[in-house]
Each structure stands twice: as C-alpha cells, then as structure tokens.
C-alpha cells in the first residue's frame, strides 16, 4: 500500500567517500549556515546532566543489537546521528550516541525494561517535527525512534476505526483512509513527516480541530510501553466504555514522559467529498473576529477551517515562496483562509458565496478569492502552511503557541513587536539587526495564536527580551502558554504561568509513580 522507502539506497557514509567535497554537508534539505549549537551549551545555566543516568557502554550496545537482531536498526555513526540529534528549526541539538529503531512493541518493551534497570535515559522520537525541542535529547539520552513501526494494523470501514502503528506517517495514514472514503481527524503542516503516535503523544491540534475536535475525543485507544517495560494496551477499546480510569488520556499530551506510544486506535469521520477554499483580505483584527462570527453562523456545519494571518506573515511567506500574493489588489493588514467541507458541492458553494457576498456588502471583507479547482485550493493553503518554514528562513524563529481569549488574541503580537522595537532589535530588511519581525497567525476558530519571532540568529538578548515577558502577558490575560505545541524543553520552566501549584504537583506525582527512575524524556515537561 505504501511505497517502500528508500529502495536500494546506498548508505550515506559510502556516498561521501565518492565525493570528498560533500564530506561535511549535512544531509538535510534546509541545511544552511552555521552548525547548530548544542542545547547543553546554550542552556548550560539552566540544565546540567544528571549523574544518576548511566553512560552508554559497549555492553549496552551488544544487548540492543541482540534485541533488534539487525545492525540496520541501530544507528551509532556520528553523521547519521546528526539527523536525529537536531530539530528542524535548528534550535536544539542533543549528543545522543545511539538511535534504536525497533520494529515491534515487544522490542520496545525489552528496550525499556533494560534501560529502566540500567538507568539509561531515553527520548522517544517520532517524525521529529516538534516545535519545543521535546523529541531532541538534551545530553546523551538514547533516541528511541518509532519510524520502523509503520504498519496500518486494521481498518473497519463500517465504524471508521483505524488501528495503526505509532510510526505511521500522518499523510500516509490519511491517504490510506482516503482510499476508503474516510479522513484522519487531524491535519497539520508537518503531515508529510510527523507520526500518528507523535501527534497523540503531543496532543497536536492542527487545522481540523475546529471541525473534528481534539485527539482526547477522537483517540479511542492506545498501546504504549511504560518505563518499566510493561505493555499497556487499550487499543481494542470501544467508542463508549465507562469502566475505570481512562489511562490513555494521560498519555495523550504526555510528550513521551509517561510511556512510549506504539499503537493508536482512532475514530475517523467520513471524508468530505466537496471542499472549498476562500482567501480573504481584512482591514483589522476586530473585523477578522466579525468575519469569524459570520462564518460560524452562516457556514455552520460545513466550516472546517478558519485561519487568520497577519500582513507581515504573508510578506515573509511571499519572499520565501518567491511568489506574488494571490490577492493582488494590495497589501492588507490581515488575511483569512476559510475552508468548507461537506458532501454536496452545489450546496456548499451556494452557502459560501452567499456568506462572502454578504461579508463584502457589509464591508467586512476588502477583497478575496475563491479557489476554482483543487490546484488553486492547494496553492491558497500553501500561503498558510508555508508560514512556519518562511518564518525560520532567515536563520531561526522563536515560537510561541498560545491560547488567549479571542478579543485579546492579536494584542500579544503587537506587544511583542513593541517590546522588541524598544530594545532596538528589529529590522525587516537590514541584516544589522538580529530580529526580522514578530508575526502572528493561527487557528482563530480555536482561540489559538502562533506568535513567531523571526530572527537572523538565536541570541540570549532576544530571548531575554521575550521571556518571561510573553508568558507574563499571557498569564495576565488568562491564556495558556502552550495551546498545541506542548511544553517540551522550551517551556519546561514556564508551566507555572498556566497551571496552578496543585495541578503541577499532581502531574509530578503521576510522573514519579510511573517513571520512578525518571528515565523517560528527562530535563523536560515539568
């Protein structure tokens, strides 16, 4: 069903022998500029290696080789390790000496049992598309990659329940479902790389949350290996089951600190056969909110995405895509992408056109376009989905993914921009200043804003200007410092801005109960 990956691929090491000039090239398409600094160095004032964890030795390697039965499922070569040690934003870099890529849940169980006994720290890693450094080791933790567990286990075309391995790439799962007339209830920009297990472990939100709700609702069961090697499974759970504590809910969003998710059972809705996309230009944030209210009222059940983007995010995306903006009549302060999904194109189009006509008549929308075919829909979506890449394009990006009550949502971007300007750090064109600009975009439908501070380099001065300022601002507005990206390494020290002492204590109690040795994803989360 899926394309077999990397057929007949020569190993990286041998290629380089043939071409000495490429010996230092990092094997990633976005590799550019200088090497990524080690997290351990950058944050040496915040975190030290805990000496309770054992250092990897020869005996351990032999043991793992014995479990995995195949040398190809272990990576300890310096250059190949780099891919697993770095995050895509080039912000965090670990020093792991070993990547394990088990093929079965039993292998994961044996690995965890051994690591627990030996006090070897472990970082579970999916597609490594996280935004807070959660999947990257801080020091020498072993990386447990789920990428070899990539099989669809079963699909029930009556109930729409999909069961699959944790390492199935989201887009592959969705393509599989598409052939059966169903859709994965979650979609996000990184769908081509991120894993189904990873999105559950991080409780990812994404573009369809508005329509299909959070994974806490759609995931029916999980299979996971606990830190001591115990295999927990609720993968055969039914849609309704009120017996006992719902343990899987603890794993969803645990970011690999409670267990390693190895299998997922998820309820999939039937795939909409008609999708329409419109892209609108709006003159103020207040008006964006009015358009949202109107869209919810008039499009009601077919509204499947309501994404807003500020003018600067589109400017940077245009530079990155090297393309002219689809809305040609001028630059506007805000843009909105509306998607409808339904089962009857005529009905949906009529609703959408009526809504848009009204919005234009009332002066809420200054200009707009409706995609006329699938290619145009995809092209319009790319102006939203390319923002994360565009924002990191000049060197790096500080990402803040926050929930704030709607009326104050965009105020955070303005506040951050003011703060950075006061510190005299910003210039959108000149390379003399470290910051390109602060941009805002996000899932307005969910009250979720992405504040991205696009930078030319990561530096302490920028970080000090933004943190804890941003977190304090959010706390003041009763927001959450992490709406959908999680805590990971970046926000470990800031959970107190969103959670009470009681809540934090409960979280720590649970962690200590299931992982008394603290071997799973240490130095992160809380």
């Amino acid at each position, binding site marked *: 069903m899926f394309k077999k990956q990397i057929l*007949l691929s020569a190993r990286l090491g041998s290629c380089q022998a043939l071409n000495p000039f490429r010996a230092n090239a990092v094997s990633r398409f976005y590799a550019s500029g200088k090497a990524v600094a080690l997290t351990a160095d950058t944050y040496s004032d915040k975190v030290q290696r805990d000496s309770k964890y054992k250092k990897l030795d020869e005996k351990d390697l032999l043991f793992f080789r014995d479990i995995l039965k195949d040398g190809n499922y272990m990576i300890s070569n310096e250059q190949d390790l780099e891919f697993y040690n770095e995050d895509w934003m080039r912000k965090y870099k670990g020093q792991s000496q070993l990547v394990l890529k088990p093929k079965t849940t039993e292998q994961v169980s044996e690995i965890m049992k051994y690591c627990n006994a030996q006090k070897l720290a472990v970082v579970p890693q999916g597609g490594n598309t996280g935004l807070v450094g959660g999947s990257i080791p801080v020091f020498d933790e072993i990386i447990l990659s789920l990428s070899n567990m990539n099989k669809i286990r079963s699909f029930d075309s009556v109930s729409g329940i999909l069961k699959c391995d944790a390492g199935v790439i989201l887009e592959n799962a969705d393509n599989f479902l598409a052939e059966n007339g169903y859709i994965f209830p979650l979609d996000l920009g990184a769908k081509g790389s991120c894993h189904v297990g990873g999105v559950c472990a991080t409780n990812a939100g994404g573009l369809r949350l508005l329509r299909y709700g959070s994974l806490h609702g759609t995931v029916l069961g999980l299979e996971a290996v606990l830190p001591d090697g115990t295999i927990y499974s609720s993968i055969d759970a039914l849609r309704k089951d009120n017996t006992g504590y719902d343990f899987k809910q603890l794993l969803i969003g645990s970011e690999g600190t409670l267990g390693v998710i190895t299998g997922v059972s998820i309820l999939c809705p039937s795939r909409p056969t*008609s999708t329409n996309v419109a892209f609108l230009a709006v003159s103020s944030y207040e008006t964006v909110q009015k358009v949202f209210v109107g869209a919810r009222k008039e499009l009601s059940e077919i509204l499947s995405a309501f994404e807003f983007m500020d003018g600067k995010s589109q400017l940077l995306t245009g530079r990155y895509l090297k393309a002219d903006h689809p809305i040609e009549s001028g630059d506007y302060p805000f843009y909105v992408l509306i998607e409808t999904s339904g089962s009857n194109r005529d009905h949906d189009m009529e609703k959408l056109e009526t809504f848009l006509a009204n919005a234009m008549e009332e002066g809420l929308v200054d*200009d707009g376009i409706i995609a006329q*075919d699938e290619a145009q829909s*995809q092209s319009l979506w790319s102006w939203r989905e390319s923002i994360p890449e565009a924002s990191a394009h000049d060197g790096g990006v500080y990402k803040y993914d926050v929930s704030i009550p709607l009326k104050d949502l965009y105020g955070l971007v303005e506040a951050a921009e003011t703060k950075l300007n006061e510190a005299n750090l910003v210039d959108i064109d000149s390379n003399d200043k470290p910051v390109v600009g602060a941009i805002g975009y996000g899932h307005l439908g969910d009250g979720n804003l992405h504040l991205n501070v696009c930078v030319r380099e990561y530096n302490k001065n920028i970080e000090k200007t933004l943190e804890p300022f941003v977190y304090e601002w959010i706390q003041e507005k009763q927001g959450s410092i992490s709406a959908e990206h999680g805590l990971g390494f970046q926000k470990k020290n800031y959970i107190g801005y969103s959670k009470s002492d009681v809540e934090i204590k409960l979280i720590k109690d649970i962690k200590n109960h299931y992982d008394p040795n603290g071997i799973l994803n240490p130095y992160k989360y809380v």
Partner: protein
Amino acid sequence: MSSKLKILVPLKRVIDFATKPRINKAGTGVETTGVKFSMNPFCDIALEESLRIREANKDIVEKIHAVSIGPTKAQDILRTALAKGADTSTLVDVGNEEVEPLIVAKLLQKVVEKEQSNLIILGKQAIDDDANQTGQILAGLLNWPQATNASKVEIDGTKVTVTREVDGGSDTLSAELPMIITADLRLNEPRYATLPNVMKAKKKPLEKLKSSDLGVELVSRLETLKVEEPPARAAGVKVGSVDELVSKLKEVKAI
C-alpha cells in the same frame, strides 16, 4: 473584417487534475460520481491568454466569449471564466454524452459563425482524453491558419505572431487574422477569480443551447472496448551494503 478582436475561448470541464482518477467497476471508463470536476488546465491557460491580450492591447478586443460543450454542470466552469474576465458565454448542453473531437469541432464551427469570432484560443488538449485534435480539426473545418502548442503570443494589428516550443528550440509562426491558437503549459500562469468578480459574474450572460440548435448530430465513431490501470510497480528490495547493491544492479542488468 474589422481589426477588433472577437476572441472565442472553448473550455472543457474535466476531472480535477489534482484528483487521482479511478476506473469504474464495469471497466468502461473513469468513475465520475463524487469526483471533483474543474476547468481543464490548458483551457484555463487559453482563457488567461485572451485576458492578457485584452490587458496588453488597449481597445483592440471587442469581446471574449467562452463556450463549453458538456453536461449542464459545465456552466460552473463558464461562471468561473466569466468571473475571471470573459464577457459572455455559451453552454452547449450535450448531457452526459461523450463527444469526440470531430463533433466538438463541428459544434465550435457553428459557434464561431454565430459569434463571428476572428481569434480562437483553446487548450492544446484536455487532460481527460488527451486527444490533442480539436484545435487542429477546427482549423481544417474553418480553413483558418493555426498555431499549436503556443508558448508566446504577440498581436500587432491584424497580425498574430506565435512562438511554439518544439524539440530542440522554438518555432515562430505568424499569420493574419482570423486564426486558431492552441495553448501549451508554459504560455502563462492563470489568475484567481476574485470575490467581487465572482459576484459580478452571476449577472453576465450565459446562453444555453442544445446541439440540435446548432444543427449538429451527436454521433460517435469510436467505441471504447476496455479501460484498465497500468500494471503496478513491483516492490523494491533493501540492500545492506554497496557490494550487494552493485551485484543486484548487475543481476537486473541495470549496469
């Protein structure tokens, strides 16, 4: 003939090019129920070119008329064309009948006479049947000069110069109006329909005709015997070393 251009743009409604077509259960054609249809991409390029000619040459275009031959639903793509800038449009409703290029050309010939068009710009082919014949047959029926697979079009009074991409270079043709041009992929990049124009397009004229109104009988000369998928690609193998790779490649005589 006046030197003002009356451009005719024929448009075909096809399965959206981004959707993967599937063969129907009977094996007689492609499954169409629940599938998204859009304007044929080459037709979209042809339409775009007519709009650009009007924008680049002030006052020389009198009218851009879009025409589609297809089911009632084909009026969706005509509305799109009107939203993008066509002035008027005609739908020749042939129901769900498959119409072969010769009949399409005969119907178009009648529309050309009716609209008194002097420049026809159409896609070089439709992505559903890939026939690449309609433009050429129409040129034969009208006995007009034709320039196929255009990658550049320039107008100077009544003289039209067309650059075509051919193997190993380009070929430049010029002719006096009236003329037929078929559009290739690189001619231009079509625009989006803007919201205000989509609204305005609802009020633009869309004439509906039957093939009998044009005096053309729908006959099929071809019979489709069977439609089948190309054979699936065989699964690959994974090798552990360069030596193994080399020996495998030798085995399959790739090196």
